[in-house]
């Protein structure tokens, strides 16, 4: 890989140990992937934020000095950062102490303490643009950035995204190059059936697609009978593909900025109505009974529109009753505190449906140790359907439409 004189200098340690380590990581990844050079990135998004997932390796982050070279955001941590809230969640003091130390280490490097998996929902008009290079970890955000925004990022790991943030560059390979972004498999959805996809159907669809395509880039052909997917539906599709597959991009005509330009590949996969239905329960061992023992929404973090919808459904399904089961809604602090959400009083209105209803920021069901005592979790998220059985102390999950999740709460 070709390095500029300045990059060479950093590699040799002349800019200090931290930048040397970061450069060594980028060069090693570049060489493994036959990259010819490093390219500048606009932003970085880092994973490895929850103490539950990185453990004592945070000492590595603690040992780093200096500042990130580009605007960098962070994934959810292991608890709501308001003291009253994490205590209420049942997070224990020793965990909280470690978690705050992890966060302090990132903050001292200049990483934004906004802990969320939806960096693309923050910052108003300042979204990544078509063709812009990024170094993002967090698979759901990578898929959204590449497939919906047309920005370019590989599926970074926690250390590689951090290294890219510190240097402000990433090796040129993979999804940064146009020729590697072309679809390699067609996915025909409800080819000869009438399907009207909405809501968690996109979670189910992503769950299946990730499993079926592995690392191939799918060109997803949605049924003609369906209206175009909303941003929130695309978010859930991205999250589910990222959870079960290892590919960082999909194409949908009318959604993906590059989709119009591409020729369709020969290989074909078909997904029908029955396949989608099976993801919603019954077919898989880890699925659990329809009533559930808890409800979790907001994986990835809820948008303002989703908060609004959850409130509407609570009113509709509740008919004056209080929620009986633990009901968690996860969102980003910046969304909770955004002008419109505050003006409408959405968080208070949602939490008014009973003491068991909680709107939680900065964390999520899977990366926090606080949610491990449940038997069966209802969710509208395909990502949770995949990770709850693996990471939540033996809990199981069941995919439901958002309205079914809310109905199950009463």
């Amino acid at each position: 890989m070709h390095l500029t004189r300045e990059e060479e200098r950093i590699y040799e340690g002349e800019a200090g140990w931290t930048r040397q380590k970061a450069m060594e990581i980028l060069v090693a990844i570049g060489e493994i992937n036959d990259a010819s050079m490093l390219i500048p990135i606009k932003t970085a998004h880092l994973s490895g934020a929850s103490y539950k997932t990185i453990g004592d390796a945070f000492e590595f982050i603690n040992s780093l000095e200096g500042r990130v070279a580009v605007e960098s955001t962070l994934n959810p941590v292991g608890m709501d950062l308001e003291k009253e809230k994490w205590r209420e969640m049942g997070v224990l003091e020793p965990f909280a102490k470690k978690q705050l130390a992890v966060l302090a280490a990132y903050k001292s490097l200049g990483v934004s303490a906004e802990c969320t998996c939806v960096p693309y929902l923050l910052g108003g008009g300042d979204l990544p643009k078509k063709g812009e290079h990024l170094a993002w970890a967090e698979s759901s955000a990578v898929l959204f950035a590449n497939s919906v925004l047309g920005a370019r990022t590989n599926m970074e790991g926690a250390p590689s995204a951090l290294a890219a943030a510190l240097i402000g560059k990433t090796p040129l390979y993979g999804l940064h190059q146009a020729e590697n972004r072309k679809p390699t498999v067609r996915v025909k959805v409800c080819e000869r059936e009438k399907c009207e996809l909405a809501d968690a159907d996109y979670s189910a669809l992503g769950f299946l697609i990730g499993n079926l395509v592995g690392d191939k880039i799918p060109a997803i052909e949605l049924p003609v009978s369906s209206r175009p997917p909303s941003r929130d539906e695309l978010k859930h599709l991205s999250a589910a593909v990222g959870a079960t597959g290892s590919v960082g991009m999909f194409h949908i005509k009318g959604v993906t900025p590059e989709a119009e330009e591409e020729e369709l590949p020969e290989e074909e996969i078909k997904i029908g109505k029955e396949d989608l239905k099976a993801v919603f329960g019954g077919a898989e061992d880890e699925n659990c009974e329809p009533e559930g023992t808890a409800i979790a929404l907001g994986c990835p973090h809820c948008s303002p529109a989703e908060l609004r919808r959850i409130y509407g459904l609570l009113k509709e399904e509740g008919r004056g009753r209080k929620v009986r089961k633990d009901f968690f809604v996860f969102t980003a602090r910046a969304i909770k505190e955004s002008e419109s959400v505050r003006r409408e009083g959405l968080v208070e209105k949602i939490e008014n449906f009973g003491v068991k209803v909680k709107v939680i920021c900065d964390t999520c069901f899977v990366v926090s140790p606080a949610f491990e005592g449940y038997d069966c979790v209802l969710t509208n998220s395909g990502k949770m359907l995949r990770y709850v059985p693996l990471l939540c102390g033996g809990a199981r999950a069941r995919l439901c439409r958002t309205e079914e999740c809310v109905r199950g709460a009463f």
Partner: protein
Amino acid sequence: MKLKGRSVAKGVAAGKALVSRQRISFLGAVEPTTGVVVDKTHDLYGKGVASRVLVFPGGKGSTVGSYVIYQLKKHGKSPAAMVILDRSADTIVAVGAIIAEIPAVDSVELKLELELGAGAAEGEGGRGLLRDGEKVVVNADEGYIEF
């Protein structure tokens, strides 16, 4: 016997070879505070990687595996060096070796042969045999291993 390799993470170290023919998912398969392989399906199950020269095909699974390698080092239970066989190192092991400062080389031309449960790696063209437990020097500054 001296075989050429490509430097993945700089440094020089020596130790007894611990040979595996399977990739390792560091997150989940290796206990970060003891260095013991706890994955029952792995050919190194029950063995400790601490202070050994780990000779294996590379990593797999979660990228958090890099941080597990770092944790092993912090607990004094990491391999002394790593030799990734036959192919390019994967990013999980490469990044883990870099942040933990464990010397590592890849593209070493060794073929794996396991005999009677004892791991051994044979040099290309039958030029030599690296037995499990044999002392190996890994020089990742200059890019070779010697045993």
